[in-house]
Each structure stands twice: as structure tokens, then as C-alpha cells.
């Protein structure tokens, strides 16, 4: 398998990372090297093997539906790039 330049640009768009054409070319060559390594997996017959998503076979715990956290909006918004009146500011989305 080999990724085309267009595929690299498409993936970068899906990941919301701006990429120039020259960066895309370097990335293409690195990713193709990495996928060559990854391709070793394809030679293995894994029919009937249960996929393992996690090291521990656990089900999610439930907790009582009670408020346990205090409101710390000011502290959490102090690290935000831009806020106003307790809201996070982003460029206008709806015209």
C-alpha cells in the first residue's frame, strides 16, 4: 500500500491540521515508510481471533447520580485563549 499526496492532504484535513504541499510530500514519504512496517500485520491469519480493545476485561462502573464537583468556571476559563462573560469565544459560525 502506498499513500498518494492527495490522500495525505485529505487525512490532514480530516484531522484539522493545515499542511503545505512541501510538508505533505515529506509526510507522505514518512507515512509510507511507517505503513510498510505496519503492513507486516496483513500476513497474519487472524480469523476467529477476538479483537482486544483493552488490557482489562472490565465493564464501566456506575455511580450515584449526584453532584460531586464544585463550579470552578473562573479557574478553568483562566487558561482559555479567549473568553467573555463566562463564554468561550470562537469565530462566527452562523451567518
Amino acid at each position, binding site marked *: 500500500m502506498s499513500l498518494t499526496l492527495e490522500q495525505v492532504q485529505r487525512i490532514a484535513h480530516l*484531522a484539522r*491540521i493545515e499542511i503545505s504541499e512541501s510538508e505533505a510530500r515529506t509526510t507522505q514519504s514518512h507515512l509510507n515508510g*511507517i505503513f510498510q*512496517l505496519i503492513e507486516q*500485520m496483513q500476513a497474519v491469519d*487472524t480469523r476467529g481471533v477476538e479483537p*482486544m480493545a483493552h488490557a*482489562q476485561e472490565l465493564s464501566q*462502573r456506575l455511580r450515584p447520580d449526584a453532584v460531586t464537583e464544585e463550579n470552578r468556571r473562573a479557574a478553568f476559563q483562566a487558561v482559555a485563549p479567549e473568553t467573555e462573560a463566562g463564554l468561550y469565544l470562537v*469565530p462566527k459560525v452562523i451567518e
Partner: protein
Amino acid sequence: MINASLKQLSQALATKQISSVELTRLFLDRIARLNPVLNAFVTVDAEKSLNSARTADARIAAGTAGQLTGIPIAQKDIFCAEGWRTTCGSKMLANFVSPYDATVIRKMHGEAGMVSLGKTNMDEFAMGSSNETSFFGPVRNPWDTERVPGGSSGGSATAVAARLAPAATGTDTGGSIRQPAALCSLTGLKPTYGVVSRYGMIAFASSLDQGGPMAASAEDCALLLNTMAGFDERDSTSLERPVEDYARDLDKPLAGLRIGLPREFFGEGCDAGVMAAVRAAIAEYEKLGATAVEVSLPNSHLSVPAYYVIAPAEASSNLSRFDGVRYGYRAEDYGSLDDMYMKSRAQGFGAEVKRRILIGTYVLSHGYYDAYYLQAQRIRRLIADDFVEAFKSCDVIMGPTSPSTAFKLGEKAADPVQMYLSDIYTIAVNLAGLPGMSVPCGFAGGLPVGLQLIGNYFGEAQLLNVAHRYQQATDWHQRRPPGIA
């Protein structure tokens, strides 16, 4: 005091030979003197550290101190600590001052009363094996400052090896505690997945990430793990288990211990000098009463390929939170919301992090999910089953931690695949979720070699016992880098 064990420091503090403030100053002075060359710390805040030390001294005076109260420690900059800048080695978080404590930090600062000396350098978002992907520049290995300390916990490794701190925290997703421990001649432990809380530990690959101690000896690691481990309701994968004393079995004799040597770890691909030191260590274990048996991990060669699907897939999802809205870097100039995301992420992440996000995005995308992600998860099962089979005929598994000693800065930086292969012996342990350690076992060409110990699930106390008995019989773990005064 610089080379003292945690137990010795604890006694010195309890008997008022030294105060926590004096001890903290001693290490802060070393950091001020040596860090400009080594670059092990990215953030130091002497006043904050000394304040904690004063609180610790008050507890010691009041008779309410615990065993580690007043002992300084270096924190990998992946652990959020309230009021401390927490960068994860990234431009994305270069100005992020955490509004809360990770559970590991809360336990250390609160109940245990330990003193944080600062935050240590690391590969960006823990993605790397050399500490060269850090936004804050590479860390140097105190054994040879032209060489890497390993990664991603490279700053923590160098800090302890150069005695800028008595001990440090690390995290291990594919070898990030064990490989730098090996390259810097330290003892490092990655616990069973779920033993140490991940709350407040910035996520890379959530099904693999696990925090653990890095220190000079197995005994030190045991005391630290006693503080770090435990159930945490804030981490949905934290395991509800009875509290353990990880130091309880340190002195148990090793007679009858069965050591499994995986055929695949003793073949080609490992430097001869590393192999010679590892074999000498196993011979030492035989003198201590253990027997070596051959075992096989037939799918271990697939661990690197499977890992480089699973870890990037999880990373691409975890790192989508960095969008320039709620915290972290936002680009200066942008147009639309999408443009703001794209520019903030393009400028805020380094090359290796972007590469892994792209791999992850691709393997999770429509049409490729089955071929890559599901196939990797099936191989993960085969790898975990190999260990189950191997542990039927042995108690612990041993082999090299890393196929080579510390490599030169820049040597592997241009070739991601070469870099990835430096974790060839450590990654399978994360995929299976098992505990693993690296223990200093000698030198090759003047550079440290690490012996890897792999235990069965929840076998931390046994691993620490096996490491401790070896350290009672040898002095590799007491060697210090000659160039660092």
C-alpha cells in the same frame, strides 16, 4: 545525601539530621548548576518547592509525617499539577498552568507530603524514544552528553541519573519508563495497566498509558509505588483492588524462581554488548537460586506494527481536544472556525505528533478500519495470549530492555521507523497490560545496559523482589555518571 536512598533520606529527615528545606535546596542548587547543560527540567519554581518543604518540616516536627514526607521528587511534565505550568513537552501547552492536580500529584503532595522539585522534559505528548521531539529541546544523557537519555520520560531519567532529584515519576505507553531507565542506568517500573490512576495524566493512548516510578533502586521504586498506586473513582479504568504494600516481598529469597527467556528476545537484532550484559545478569540470577527456562512469544515481532496502529488511533482521538478553544495554543491569525482549528493545530503540534495523528486518523477512517485497526486489535490478543502461555512455565520473563545502548543525538531523528524499532522489546508488555521493569545490569562501551523483567498481571511485588535481590548481589545500580559532579 545526593546519592542516598529514599529510605536513608526518610531516616535522615526523621532524625533531624537534615530538614526538608535543606534537602530541597541541595537538589535545587544542583538543578540550577547542571540543568543548563542537561535540560532535564522545563519548569522549576524554587519558592513553590520550598513552601512544600516547609509544610513537610512542620509535619515532621508535629509527628504526623509519613515515610516519604519531605523527600524531593521530579515530576514528568505530563502530570497536571495545580498552579504549575504543565506542558507535556508541547508548544500547544507551553503556557498552560494547570487548574487541578493529577491523582498521582495529589497523593504525593497531599497524603505523602513529598516535595516536587519541578517538571521534567519529555518527548512531545510522550511520543518519542529519545526526548528529541520536545518543544523545549532535547535532554542530554549524563553518561555521555552527546547521546540521548531515551524517551519519552527522558527528563525524568536524566534528572535521577545526574542526581538532580532522588527519584522521579514517569509514564510508559510503549516503553517510556523502561527504555530511558535502561539508557540512563536507573530502575524503572511500569505497573499493570489500571494500578496507577491516569486522572490528570495527559492522555496519549488511553488503553496503554500507565504511570510509574523511576529511581535508583527497586526498593525506592517500591516505596514510590506504595504512594502512587490505588483505586481512583476519577479514572474509569482504575482497578478496584485491595491496597498492597509493594515492599512486602523485597527480601524474599529467589530459590526456585523460574525465569522465562523468550527465544525471540535472544536472537538477532540486539547489540552484542547489550546481550552479553543481559546474559551475565541471568547467570547471576542462577547463582541466586533461580533457573532459566526457554519460552516463546511467537507474535512479539508484530508488536511494533500493531502498536503503531493502536497508539496513533487512540492518540488521534485524544488529541482532538486541542482545538484552540478551551485551553492551549491558538494561532494568531485565522479566518473561519475551521481555519482556526487547522492553523492552531498545525502550529501547536510538532512533526512527530502530527505524524501520529495522521496515522491514527487514517487507520480509523471509513474503509480502512477493519484492515488496520481491527487487525491490530486481533494481533494484540495474540500477543497477550503468548504471555499467558509463557507464564505457564515461568514466574518472570527476562531479556534486554532496549536493543542498543544510548544512541547519539540526531542519529535516528530523521527516520521514524528506526526510532520506533528501539522499543521492540518493551511494546508487547503495554499491549498485554502487564507490569515490566528495567534494572541496570552493566555497561557496553561505557554506556548503561538495562535488564527487562516482565511479570504476570499484578506481579509488581514479585518483580520488585526479583530486582531487589539482584541489587543486593550487584552494584550496577549504584554506579554514577563519571562526568557529573
